[in-house]
């Protein structure tokens, strides 16, 4: 093991520390230096990750080889149990390191353009470093304890970044929502870890997996423990029923959304399940839960993506849906399918988010797709890269998403579970539809301006056509959207292409969205799958009828999207009017948020009021009642003994002494 691998998680940490020092002692809150420091740290970590990848590819591989843990040392010992820290650099971890550092580097480069002029520029980069460092620490964790520590660090950094513009109440609320919702799952994760610990007296993945293999751990205990562990992944990876935080997490800056959705936050849940796959495989029940939750979430989220009007929310639901695919793949026992999709998804989802950010940036903070349109002419690079990402997401061959999604669909087919297979296939069609709906609405047709903005421009003194920065009302009116940080000074309709620091990462990611899938395709004999699974070559075969079916459904989805939003052969308004109940169900997100609001706001609060009354009236009442009774019965009588005359007290004292003396003298001396 080359020693430089230790630097991979430490470099972002160094970036964080340097940035904080610059902020605290240098007063550099808006300096471009912060960005350079972060990009340098992240870029170096990426280079080292690639070196580590090449090193790992040169190692002999076999499926029987135990997970190589390097540099494990004892953190502390308590109660005779040692708590070690360490690092894993097996193929899975190395692949993840490369993906995380790569996406993070590109996002940070892109952010230079997006966050330009933000008052919290340095703080932004410091948090981004913290976020990446947490994720890298999570990736190399060899045991549950260490993973849990970084797991929570990922959670807190996401809280800091989603609530980055904390001055906006909606951002503060979204940050809290993300943190608290994931905490619900984390509680299950923690209990699951502790159950495993009480059974095996170790946190180590490999040792627990051995216990499962030898049969000393299994049955109901293992099933319960792993379902609880999976609850953590449900929260982190925004699976049903803990998915509600992810669409709201759009309140953060768009590059943060890209990082959360592609590499750091939501990938953590999938990665954890992949990492603990040998333990999950000891419990078919837990695997079934993973597969069902994943399959259901894929379909459930895709249906909501169909009707969203906010471009970032469409992408958010598509992320939830794609994560559901990954969980489905993992739950069906295909480690490679789930991981492969995680990697390809990281590239094309980062691309889609950064492209969406470029659209929002270029239109002065507009996020509503109904107020976009015709942007292809204004921002061709963004439009084409977005198209590449969309094709990858829609799993059209030969784009990256096709190869990985095809594996998951294939796994669902081979499992023989008809319902899950149908979930996967229907979701494929829905995915293609909603992402191309977004693309057609954003980039084709004519520009539809937000009527409120136009009215505001007319009344707000925006008469001078040359003054591109004269629209003060702009920032107010789009409040709640992605503005308020310096690039809101454009006239409505005055869309422009983004600077090179933003389009550059888009182009790089677009190329990857096209070619990244080949590493796991039959063309390369499944090099990726073989590497991750630990064998030389994996048997990757494309089931041609199945691939044709899923591709055909994807193309059908695109066609329908074209019919509605591209060519306007069909009227979306008339169609939704016919299916109004279903449309409203999707639009209101299945009322999940309302149900949670009702559960917490009405049921829980009502119960709490009841318990508070019980505490005050019954518990406190008993205490107070006892005190009152003792006063009423004894206190009033004994009051008369307190004469205040000292001789009386002295008399009582001596009488007592005499009585005691009498008792002592009277007791016969013992033998």
């Amino acid at each position, binding site marked *: 093991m080359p020693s430089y691998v230790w630097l991979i998680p430490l470099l972002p940490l160094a970036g964080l520390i340097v940035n904080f020092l610059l902020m605290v002692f240098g007063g550099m809150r808006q300096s471009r230096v912060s960005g350079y420091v972060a990009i340098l740290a992240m870029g170096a970590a990426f280079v080292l990750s690639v070196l580590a990848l090449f090193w790992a590819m040169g190692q002999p591989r076999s499926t029987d080889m135990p997970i190589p843990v390097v540099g494990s040392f004892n953190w502390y010992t308590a109660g005779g149990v040692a708590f070690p820290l360490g690092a894993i650099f097996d193929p899975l971890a190395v692949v993840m390191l490369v993906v995380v550092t790569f996406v993070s580097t590109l996002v940070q480069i892109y952010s230079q353009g997006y966050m330009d002029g933000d008052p919290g520029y340095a703080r932004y980069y410091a948090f981004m470093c913290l976020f990446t460092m947490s994720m890298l620490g999570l990736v190399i964790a060899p045991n549950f304890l260490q993973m849990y520590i970084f797991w929570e660090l990922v959670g807190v950094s996401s809280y800091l970044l989603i609530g980055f513009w904390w001055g906006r109440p909606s951002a503060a609320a979204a940050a809290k929502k993300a943190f608290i919702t994931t905490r619900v799952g984390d509680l299950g994760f923690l209990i699951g870890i502790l159950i495993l610990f009480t059974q095996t007296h170790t946190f180590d993945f490999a040792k627990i997996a051995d216990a499962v293999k030898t049969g000393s751990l299994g049955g109901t205990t293992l099933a319960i423990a792993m379902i609880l562990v999976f609850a953590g992944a449900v929260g982190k990876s925004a699976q049903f029923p803990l998915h509600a935080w992810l669409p709201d997490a759009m309140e953060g800056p768009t590059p943060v959304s890209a990082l959360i959705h592609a590499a750091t936050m939501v990938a953590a849940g999938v990665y954890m399940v992949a990492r603990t796959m040998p333990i999950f495989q000891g419990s078919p029940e837990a695997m079934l839960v993973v597969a069902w939750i994943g399959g259901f979430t894929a379909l459930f989220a895709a249906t909501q993506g169909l009707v969203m009007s906010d471009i970032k929310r469409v992408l958010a639901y598509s992320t939830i849906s794609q994560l559901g695919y990954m969980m489905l793949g993992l739950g069906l026992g295909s480690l490679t399918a789930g991981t492969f999709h995680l990697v390809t998804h990281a590239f094309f989802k980062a691309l889609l988010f950064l492209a969406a950010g470029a659209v929002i940036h270029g239109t002065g903070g507009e996020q509503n797709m109904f107020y976009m349109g015709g942007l292809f002419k204004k921002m061709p690079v963004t439009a084409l890269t977005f198209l590449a990402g969309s094709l990858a997401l829609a799993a059209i061959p030969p784009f990256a998403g096709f190869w990985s999604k095809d594996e998951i669909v294939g796994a669902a087919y081979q499992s023989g579970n008809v319902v899950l297979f149908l979930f996967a296939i229907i979701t494929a069609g829905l995915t293609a539809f909603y992402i191309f709906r977004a693309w057609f609405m954003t980039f084709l047709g004519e520009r539809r301006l937000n009527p409120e903005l136009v009215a505001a421009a007319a009344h707000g003194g925006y008469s001078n056509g040359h003054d591109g920065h004269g629209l003060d009302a702009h920032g107010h009116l789009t409040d709640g959207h992605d503005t308020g940080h310096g690039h809101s000074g454009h006239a409505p309709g005055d869309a422009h292409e983004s600077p090179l620091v933003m389009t550059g990462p888009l182009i790089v990611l677009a190329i990857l969205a096209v070619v990244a899938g080949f590493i796991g395709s039959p063309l390369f004999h499944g090099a990726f799958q073989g590497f991750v699974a630990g064998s030389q070559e994996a048997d990757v075969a494309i089931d041609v009828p199945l691939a044709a079916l899923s591709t055909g459904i994807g193309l059908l989805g695109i066609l329908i999207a074209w019919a509605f939003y591209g060519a306007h052969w069909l009227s979306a308004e008339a169609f939704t009017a016919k299916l109004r109940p279903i449309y409203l169900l999707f639009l209101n997100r299945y009322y999940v948020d309302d149900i949670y609001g009702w559960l917490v706001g009405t049921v829980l609060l009502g119960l709490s009021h009841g318990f508070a009354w019980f505490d005050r009236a019954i518990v406190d009442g008993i205490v107070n009642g006892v005190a009152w009774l003792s006063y009423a019965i004894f206190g009033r009588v004994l*009051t008369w003994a307190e*004469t*205040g*005359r*000292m*001789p009386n007290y002295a*008399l009582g004292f*001596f009488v007592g002494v005499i009585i005691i003396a009498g008792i002592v003298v009277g007791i016969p001396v013992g033998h």
Partner: protein
Amino acid sequence: MTITLTHFLVLSGIIFSIGLFGVLAKRNVVSILMSIEMMFNAVNITLVAFSRYLPVPASNSAARGLNGQVFALFIIAVAAAEAAVALAIILAVYRGRRTVSVEDVNLMKW
């Protein structure tokens, strides 16, 4: 007539009872303090008498007859300190309330 241990104990008992009566019946705090001193001395007499008359275990022959007397000396010393403290308190009470009668110092009454 020989003086026996009983005589001393009876004398001590009489003095102790006089002191006790004084503590309980007197109103002037200074008188009460003096009565307490009498009770101390009654106890001292008892200790010295026991020290003189009671047989001492053979194992402790070196300290024969001295234990009780040492005790009495300690009590005298402690009583002196106690009298000083008590007088100081009485003075303080007198300055505050212009009285040394226990009848009038009754803040502890209900």
